[in-house]
């Protein structure tokens, strides 16, 4: 499969960035810069921004997109009370992400927008390039949905 070229120098640009001092650690620390310098001008927050409790304040700039809201927002606020070293920070964030998906789905429907799952999930591309996977996934989802509905119906019927 492979033809091994014994003379590596035939490769274009071979060794032009050779640095024998980079062995093994590229020198990057400059102790002259070990003190905290003055900070850039602070951006003013117009929405709720959660910040890590491993820093005393916001960074000088930050993004303002999608401020926390709803149940997912409550979970995010809880998460940010804990340091980045703790599962109490990350697991609530993962859970909040999943809850947020449902919240936004409900918001979409409330606003009269029914999401086109087929298009949003790249179904057109799958149909063009990988029909078999698309059919398998569609079948699995259909069987799963029918099974869930059937189970719910049985449980309700017994009651």
């Amino acid at each position, binding site marked *: 499969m492979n033809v091994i070229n014994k003379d590596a120098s035939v490769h*274009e640009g071979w060794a032009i*960035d050779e640095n024998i001092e980079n062995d093994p650690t*590229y020198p990057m620390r400059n102790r002259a810069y070990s003190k905290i310098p003055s900070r850039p001008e602070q951006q003013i927050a117009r929405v709720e921004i959660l910040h890590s409790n491993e820093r005393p304040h916001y960074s000088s700039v930050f993004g303002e997109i999608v401020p926390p809201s709803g149940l997912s927002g409550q979970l995010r606020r809880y998460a940010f009370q804990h340091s980045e070293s703790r599962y109490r920070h990350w697991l609530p964030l993962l859970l909040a992400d999943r809850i947020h998906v449902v919240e936004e789905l409900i918001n979409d429907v409330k606003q009269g927008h029914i999401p086109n799952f087929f298009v949003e999930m*790249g179904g057109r591309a799958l149909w063009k390039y990988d029909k078999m996977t698309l059919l398998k996934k569609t079948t699995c989802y259909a069987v799963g949905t029918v099974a869930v509905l059937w189970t719910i119906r049985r449980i309700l019927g017994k009651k």
Partner: protein
Amino acid sequence: MKAMNYRGPFRIRVDEKPMPEILHPRDAIVQVTRACICGSDLHLYHGMVPDTRVGSTFGHEFIGIVRELGSGVTNLKVGDKVLVPFNIACGECVFCVQGLFANCHESNSMSTAAGGIFGYSHIAGGYDGGQAEYVRVPYADVGPTVIPEGMDEEDALLLTDVLPTGYQAAEMGGIQKGDTVVVFGAGPIGIMAAKCAWLFGAERVIVIDHLEYRLDFVKKYANCEVYNFKSIEDPVLFIKHITYWLGADVCIDAVGSDACGNAMQTITGKKLLLQAGAATALHWAINSVKKGGIVSIVGVYGPTDNLVPIGNVLNKGITIRANQTSVKRLLPRLIEHVQSGVLSPKDIITHRFSLEEIPDAYRIFSSKLDECIKPVIVV
């Protein structure tokens, strides 16, 4: 304006969103002309990165035209065509002044581990990204670089992340003349890392992946040896065998959390999310490198824990080097390489899509359909 809109794992669409605004004197508004989908965007798309909020716009690799400037930006003018490094960096904190632009301390409130990154969840600062018609660019006096006269726009586009990351992967490997370098992953970053390994004097460059079309590509593009791990029972044993039973001098993890090849890693890392992605490539890198060797990590992992053989790092005396790429630090050298023709990054682009086609673009890239290597969104 139109922008990509994340709706949940594996679900995205294009929506109308409000125009970005200048929120800080050092901001700029850039009209995006081209943006890439990065392999690390797929970690977001797959729902693997915590605090990825529905409604976010992804995209950290983009170029465009400056349309508006904050009062504090004096080195750019409206109308400039700029390439925008994926790092958001202030240029004056204790890390930026030492060239660690990826580790800026003044661009990300939400996490102290990572610097700010465009369109990469709230753990990277909560910024919208460039898979949109317009984007807010903070610290526009530091990151954005005017595209040199005569440079192909798509070469400039790949200077925002892909090429610098591949180059830094090789640089962090401390490659010396005569070294054997193994690159895990033949995605865009792995391809660039293999290509750049020669620039530091490698004698032998080996790429490991499981997708035959990508191995074929990197074999031609980077003129290296390639092996499909599906056809070799144990990649670590195989690498030992072909390196006189010592291991490689340098191993590069250019895969990150979406790795295949180990059932336990896949189930616990990708399916159950019990670890921050599947660390298969890193596991192989640690075990394949020789004693005293260097493992360079540019593959992206989540912020929680991963299962890796840390005992072997100790016993073998391995140096592990890793970082997000400080694009700004590397740009002058890499622009030289592109202009001189030593590197031609645009050659790895295989697909171009309009912004409206972005759900299909993500699906094709994620599912490795149509022999996709690098998709570009033409806005």
